[in-house]
């Protein structure tokens, strides 16, 4: 089957089975390897992308369900103010260790602060609980989200 996908503002034509997970279309068909594979079963969040702004596990999102929704990946999340603030906070607070989970963490975090510029600890727990980090960067992730949200809120005023 042929599908036309809107990814990071560009249209891409792909020819794959309709039950192919979006993750593999991004990574292997289109070569956008910033989105990571961790579990393939919506358990770890490494594959998180935005579909019409909502954080979505691309490993269980089959290509036939995407339609003409707008997909945003880690490669382009920095184009949105929320994504840019999150990336900057991640660098400023030295969140990253091995880095492998961080694409997914950043996508989840950017979605959170774009909706909620004053996230509480509970809000952060809810938004980020699905993202595993085996290197254990959670404390810095929490701090960086707060930093980014504050910077973003300040800018929006």
């Amino acid at each position: 089957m042929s599908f036309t996908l809107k990814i990071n503002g560009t249209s891409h034509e792909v020819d794959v089975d309709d039950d192919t997970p979006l993750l593999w279309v991004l990574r292997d068909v289109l070569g956008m390897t910033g989105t990571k594979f961790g579990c393939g079963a919506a358990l770890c969040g490494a594959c998180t992308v935005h579909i019409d702004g909502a954080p979505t596990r691309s490993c269980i999102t089959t290509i036939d369900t995407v339609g003409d929704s707008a997909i945003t990946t880690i490669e382009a999340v920095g184009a949105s103010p929320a994504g840019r603030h999150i990336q900057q906070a991640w660098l400023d607070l030295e969140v990253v260790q091995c880095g492998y989970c961080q694409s997914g963490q950043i996508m989840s975090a950017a979605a959170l602060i774009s909706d909620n510029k004053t996230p509480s600890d509970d809000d952060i727990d809810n938004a980020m609980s699905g993202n595993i980090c085996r290197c254990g960067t959670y404390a810095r992730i929490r701090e960086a989200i707060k930093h980014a949200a504050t910077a973003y809120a300040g800018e929006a005023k």
Partner: protein
Amino acid sequence: MLNNAMLNTYAPAQPASDTPAPGLSRRSFLTASLAAGGGLLLAVSLPRFVGEALAADGPFAPDAFIRIATDGTVTLVMPQVEMGQGIYTALPMLIAEELEIDLAGVRLEHAPPDGKLYTNPAIGFQVTGGSTSIRGFYEPLRKAGASARTMLVAAAAQMWGVDPASCDAAKGVVLHPASGRRATYGSLAEKAAAIPVPKEVALKPVDKFTLIGTPAKRLDVAGKVDGTATYGIDVKLPGLKVATVAACPVFGGKLKSVDDTEARAVKGVRQIVKIDDAVAVVADHMGAAKKGLAALKIEWDEGPNATLSTEEIVKQMAALATSGPAVDDKKVGDVAAAEAAAARTVKATYQMPFLAHATMEPLNCTVHVRPDSCEVWVGSQVLGRAQATAAEVTGLPAEKVTVHNHLLGGGFGRRLEVDSVTQAVKIAKQVDGPVKVVWTREEDIQHDIYRPYYYDQFAAGLDAQGKVTSFRHRVVGSSIVARWLPQAFANGLDFDAVDGAAGPYAFPNLHVDYVRHILPEGFVTGWWRGVGITHNAFIVEGFVDELAVESKADPVAFRRGLLANDARARGVLDLAAEKAGWGTTLPARTGRGIAVLFGFGTYMAQVADVEIGKDGAVKVRRIVCSVDCGVVVNPDTVKAQVQGGIVYGLSAALYGQITLKDGRVEQSNFDNYQALRIEEMPEIEVHIVDSREAPGGMGEPSTAGVAPAVVNAIFAATGQRLRQLPIDPDRLKGA
């Protein structure tokens, strides 16, 4: 070939000191030459252990290179790989400190497992692991930096016809203040290559450091926040196919037959590859490969392990604990006499489960086999071994195998193994063009090389005052060393299994011994973050806590009494206790526990505050960690490593266990092999002792310290002594 780096990596921890540890050779560690393409090239070699396979006075074998190019750029070429531990930042700091350049001026290159590029073939066996990176390089890299600076200054002085002592070096420039002359390092690099390497160089005293000890920014992170960093799994090549694999679910089993009719019909599937114990589906993308794999009808020859279970293994180990044969590790005084004279003896059995690593990036390896060469793309902690296995499988000489190393999406010891490389090369031999073999998470968890199961027994004698008069510890477990580093498996003793088996304590009468448990063929155990110390710290610190209770002593005071001769250990113990508010009252169903350890040259104590729910659920509220890891190269990295190590250790303490049934691993993904999540994250405080001792490792100790602190806190809260991991909330219900 095995060389020093091996032993250096997993040798039992030596007390940290500024002089080379006993047994280290002092042969020349530095050579200089003209770099290919111009500039100065320094080759640095690490201290070697004498008496080990590679003769200590053998040919000069460099472990890293420093290149100062004619444009002034300084490049450190080294085999150490970045797994998230910040090593790409810390090692350049060591050079920059003495070379007098800005940290930003140092670039990093991976050393490929082919030393010929740098004129010497012997980079040998490259390893990152066991917290050795800083420990091994601390002195050599500073000396290399100081030597290079001395040579650059000498070159400038020669050119100007002045005394080198009248010149200064700063920020990549040599200055002659008297005449105002200046020359950049780049302009001097080629001249410096002709200057003899100084025999002795003075190193800055610790209090003159301007860079070491500052929270320098990590050099490797920018690409990790925008998706551009390339891990092994991200390799892209023209014509690349993707494969996923199913190995026989029973360890040691073989592939009998496979019906691939349906798999072949899946769109995008290109080829089904059979090897003796696995089958792979090669496709245009992983989605098709997985779908194809699911469509295969596979028959396995399950072999002799088809009924293997954890219960059976534990039964064998329990029998071995009694029957032996045991090999002595440490014997001090007369344990039998002390036990006979003791007022009381306390005995206990502790157990730790098999564990998987579950690195965030599942195992993967990309291979292109051609008739006369082989290329491998992988994130590995052991490039030399990756190259060797590819050579063996293809029958090519090692120099025809090129290994391209990549960032590692977590190592934790898993990438010290090359089983997945061997398998990928076997598959690639049957594929035309490059193929990336990616394991599913299920494959990754069910075909790991597991942390051994340990079954340990203790007996301690106490006198009438509750003082420990004797301490006996028998370790039963499979030997990692015997398989992974056979020449270090001396007289049946696995040095790693007994590393830290008496904790940091001085017992007047002590007996530590080891019984090796042999696992069935095909079921393999290996290094896991924190290695021997993670096992022994849990077990020893749990038991010592029991002894404190038996002696009706405060756990901190009791430990302090056993550490009379070890000021650094007492230092971290007291610091953690003080910062945690040891002795203050806690709310109901909350407990506080402590653990102290020495490992990898580092002293550490952790105090855990835990709260137990009515349902037995354990919530770890806070960990206060004190650490004396000698001179701190990058305090921010130390803190990050402590935080990360605690999360890894806590995941294992709360959830981690691999169990076998019918020869198969019962766990498969993060739903049943759980990892700590953000909402479970305790508050972590890190207190670093200001120390001038040589740096200790920081990648491992915090993983080791957290489980015993938590289990001791659970006892404080509930009176339930847990002698087995993972923590079983059922035992804490209503407690």
